[in-house]
């Protein structure tokens, strides 16, 4: 049997973009225009660049990212609603050399899981938290979240969120920054390429904080939910820019001095 030699490429191709090793080949179930896919990719790129895939353990939330463990090519577990920081604590305490991250939405982290996130942060657990804030419950069909904006219409605030009876949005990056155990707490957005690049750098620093043993780290990412916002993907990106960013100012709320010196 003869085997023909591979044909010579006409010109040398340079690989400029490829799937991160830390992502699986599985197609995600996320809606068009949803930024979960972007956030997943950023986390995977950071894990690749830091060479920590083989000691990483990801914790999926309850919410649209409930199947996140199927999309990351690394060990993963699935937490009960809001309990990912507690589960992460249990894992990290018995495997201190592992790199443990949670990936949580706003209902998960800022509503049902408020106690778990606050205390994991207060203890300075060496974990990394990726917090997806899209101001709505996605998986259950668009109900009001703790982060829903005043007057925002959802399926459980059909006349718009009335702050008198339904309370005010919660700003997690600012709240967590008040806790001594926190090494890194920042907010970024994913509504355009420039902001996505900034988001990636923040995710990198949030993992650096963990591997350097500096303390708890969280990146809050302003995200879209075109399906439940009843918008096109482009409209959703603009809505983040025009409505969410003013309500949730982007910025560094706490950055450990050792991280400030890092060039990543």
């Amino acid at each position, binding site marked *: 049997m003869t085997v023909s030699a591979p044909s010579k490429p006409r010109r040398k191709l340079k690989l400029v973009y490829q799937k991160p090793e830390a992502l699986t080949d599985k197609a995600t179930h996320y809606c068009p225009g949803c930024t979960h896919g972007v956030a997943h990719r950023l986390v995977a790129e950071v894990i690749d660049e830091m060479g920590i895939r083989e000691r990483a353990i990801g*914790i999926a939330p309850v919410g649209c990212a409930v199947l996140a*463990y199927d999309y990351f090519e690394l060990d993963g577990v699935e937490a009960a609603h809001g*309990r990912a920081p*507690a589960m992460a604590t249990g*894992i990290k305490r018995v495997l201190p050399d592992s*790199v443990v991250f949670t990936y949580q939405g706003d209902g998960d982290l800022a509503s049902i899981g408020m*106690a778990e996130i606050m205390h994991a942060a207060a203890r300075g657990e060496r974990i990394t938290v990726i917090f997806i804030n899209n101001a709505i419950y996605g998986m259950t069909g668009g109900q009001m979240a703790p982060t829903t904006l005043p007057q925002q219409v959802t399926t459980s605030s059909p006349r718009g969120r009335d702050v008198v009876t339904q309370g005010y949005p919660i700003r997690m990056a600012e709240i967590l920054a008040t806790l001594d155990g926190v090494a890194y707490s920042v907010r970024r957005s994913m509504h355009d390429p420039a902001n996505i690049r900034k988001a990636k750098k923040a995710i990198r620093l949030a993992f650096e904080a963990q591997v350097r043993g500096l303390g708890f780290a969280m990146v809050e990412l302003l995200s879209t939910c075109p399906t439940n916002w009843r918008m096109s993907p482009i409209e959703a990106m603009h809505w983040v820019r025009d409505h969410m960013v003013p309500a949730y100012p982007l910025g560094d709320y706490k950055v450990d001095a050792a991280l400030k010196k890092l060039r990543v």
Partner: protein
Amino acid sequence: MTRELLKGNVAMAEAAIRAGVDAYFGYPITPQSELLEWMSKRMPEEGRAFLQAESEVAAINMVYGAACTGARVMTSTSGPGISLMAEGISYIAGTEVPAVIVDVMRGGPGLGNIAPSQGDYRQVIHGAGHGDFFPLVLAPASVQEAVDLISEAFDLAEKYRTVVFVVADGSIGQMMEPVTLPPMRERKRARPEWAVGGAKGRAPRRLTSLYLKPEVEERVNLRILRRWREAEAHEVRYRGYHLDDAAYVVIGFGTAGRVALSAVRAARSEGIRVGLFRPVSLRPFPTQAIRQLASQAKAFLVVEMNGGQMLEDVQAAAQGQVPIRFYGRMGGMVPFPDEVLAEIKALAAAPPSPADDPRGRWLAQMAQA
């Protein structure tokens, strides 16, 4: 072997350490707090993980996380804490990872009180949480037995990949008795083939209780059920006392069983042929052994520190073969041996008819007391 005078909670904690527990996560609640306190001192000494969680909800989810790594892990609490842990317990069972939970039972429902009770029986035998799963439940009647069952609980949890409860009523947790502690076991080094810990040189592992396809979830449910059937076949534990010639059989677990034993011995000295059957594994329940006794005895007396929660399982096991009398104390009350002796005498003098409602008769009796 040296014997030491130890409080039940402390003895159970030290027994867990000797059984090689890698991590403990808990939250203070009376009457189990000494267990947590002992762990806070001893676990760091042994270079192991201890953490006082912000709630029982967090504690059980820390247990869940550590269990996913294949570590030996436990928590301890009392009934109100079990209620809060119900969610996490169900996830642990659904993910098929092992964990040990100590429930030092107190009076309830609600905040109740901190006196000894067996009111969590129905709660724990169903594992407290939602969905189809089966925990193993072990009930000691002395501090020594609590120590022995704690040691065994970890092996059983790993063998059946499920939750194992050790349920001690408050008196077992609080009283001091001489005990022989087991020698320190070497901690297991190798992690099981299902555990997460970083996908180094192997495919990623994923641990979840989420099975979106009903046909897949059903397969998992059946796997859990088959494992439970194995436990039913091999892990039934009970103790019998003076049963060989017994015409009357008292059935009680934990402290109620222990109090009943004093009453049984007193009744024997008065010539009543009575014995004691004490279930040690509440799940799997010793159904067959009780059915066998039901075919031989004239009557049963079930004694509990609740309103007859185990009574229903005894009735199901007895299949109407034998009349049953019930005597319970509730709300943190512990029956005195004299009370149980009076019940045994009443049973022997006038056995109830098989058609009697044991709980109704007892309630009428309590109304007169």
